[in-house]
């Protein structure tokens, strides 16, 4: 579906705006990564205190999460009416 013609474009419709937002986002991410060098973090144990642990863990965890979920989809995905459709067919005597 496309937007109605007399519609005012939203702020996020302008790709330039989105790019500005993303650049600010990347800057904050960079800052957060560097912060680990600037202060002594009270670490919970040896490997958790490793600099960059949380940024790396957060990034890798989410990428892994999505990639695994995509693979799961190949096995688990069915039609929206998967459970309803089969029941209708069974009721019509179609023993499939």
């Amino acid at each position: 579906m496309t937007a109605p013609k007399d519609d005012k474009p939203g702020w996020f419709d302008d790709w330039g705006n989105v790019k500005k937002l993303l650049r600010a986002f990347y800057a904050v991410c960079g800052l957060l990564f560097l912060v680990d060098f600037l202060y002594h973090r009270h670490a919970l144990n040896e490997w958790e205190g490793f600099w960059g642990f949380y940024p790396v863990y957060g990034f890798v965890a989410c990428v892994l999460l999505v990639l695994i979920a995509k693979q799961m989809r190949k096995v688990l995905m069915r039609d929206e009416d998967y459970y309803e459709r089969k029941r209708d067919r069974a009721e019509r005597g179609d023993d499939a």
Partner: protein
Amino acid sequence: MEFALPPFLPFFLGALVVAVLRGRAQAGVAILVPILGFANLWFGMPGASETLKILDFTLVLVRADELAMLFGWLFHIAAFIGLVYSSHLRDTTQQVAALAYAGSALGAVFAGDFITLFIFWELLAISSVFLIWARRTPRAIAAGFRYLLINVFSGVILLAGALVRLWETGSLEFSYIGLEAGLAGWLILLALGVKAAFPFLHNWLTDAYPEATPTGTVFLSAFTTKVAVYALARAYPGTELLIYIGGAMAMFPIFYAVIENDLRRVLAYSMINQIGFMVCGIGIGTALALNGAVSHAFNDVIFKGLLMMSMGAVLHMTGRINGSELGGLYKSMPITTVLCIVGAASISAFPLFSGFVSKSMVMQAAMDEGYPVIWLALLFASAGVFHHAGIKIPFFAFFAHDSGIRTTEPPLNMLLAMGVAAVLCIGIGSYPDVLYGLLPYEAEYHPYDWSHVITQTQLLFFSALAFVWLNLTGRYPPELPSANLDAEWLYRRLAPRVAGCAISALDRMNAALDRFGQRVKDRAIAYVEHHHGPEGYFARTWPTGSMVALVAMVLVASLAFYLA
């Protein structure tokens, strides 16, 4: 603690009154009930439990210690927000059901013995199913039946466990049980596990909650599972098995949430993930862990309610809830968008939002008690929940590609309810001491130190970075109209098929026996007919001459015998 009225009573009386009212009066009285109930709690005095003697049993109707009170406050707040949110409804069934449901939850958490708990446990299911059936679609009707069956069954197991307990110890007191209680311990844990959505017992939640009405799901998300969490905290604190069950519950739903299209089903999976943190904390069992678990339950009801309300508003205004059909709604519903983002930030545990001050207690306890793998799993789950609830929900509903849907903000009562929840999320997050003062266990915790704030912010920003990268490189899975197979396949597809095969096998056997019986019968008749029928030997007519000769021979023979 003693109260003027048992906490459940205003709600059930209110349900009766609301059943006969209509229109604004109905909505007004409904909203008044939790306010009155709150006052009832507020003016409670230190005192004994309230009991009721029936036959030989003493039912402890109201046992109010700090653990129960925390949930008591919580359920009143949740009921108030939910009833304001649904006050535009002109559907008496839903209003009555919601009040009865809240009343049942209060009855359950203040119950002092297992019989009282059982009664309210079943009332929880019976009242709430009407919120699902009220949607009136075929899917909702079917899902409601499955929901009712599974939840009532959990009550039956609870009763069985309680009776074993009575037989073994002579007591029905609702207090610590633990797995060392043998059969009773396992039965009661199983019953609680069903309502808490343990793995493999969880599908009633993901099946039924998204099928309920936009307002109904807000109530559903607040009560049943939190009653189960309360019961676990009371009866099984420190049970090590729960640590691993909780860890599993925190992990597996986040994968389903990524590939699920119905945004309220995404939130349903998200609920299981959050309950996993609570169950894990209960399993760890230290004061810090238990405080973390119950405070997270408190916060979860409010921010999950807020997220459910925002999605309910989208469904109410657009008639749609699938990520594949939504997008661009920030232009038509900017306030709802912001309120949704507040809920998303809370569930993700952003600093200054409520999730930040409760979830980390469980994680700290996991590390303190020597469960580093569990801690890593919970950290993974934290990043994951930000991904699917913190980012995916607001993004696909309100941003992403423009779906062309133009609508308006939902009615004022819905905005107000969401606003109250949002204020609470930010208030508790920024000033947690009010919540901490209500916590039942003694444990010092200070969520705001630089380490915690910075590491959590790092985790969240880099999870977001992963989302951005996956989207910009086209690796993010699109929202697709689909259903995903889960454990419910075992009883929605496999079991009916197996039963169907068994029945048709029995049918065929029956038919074969019938045919065999027929053949035996036919053969017997043929035999008789062959010998005794018109053509048969025994029906033959004999010539008269032969008969005379035969008679003569018989007479000669008998004469011979006589003379001899």
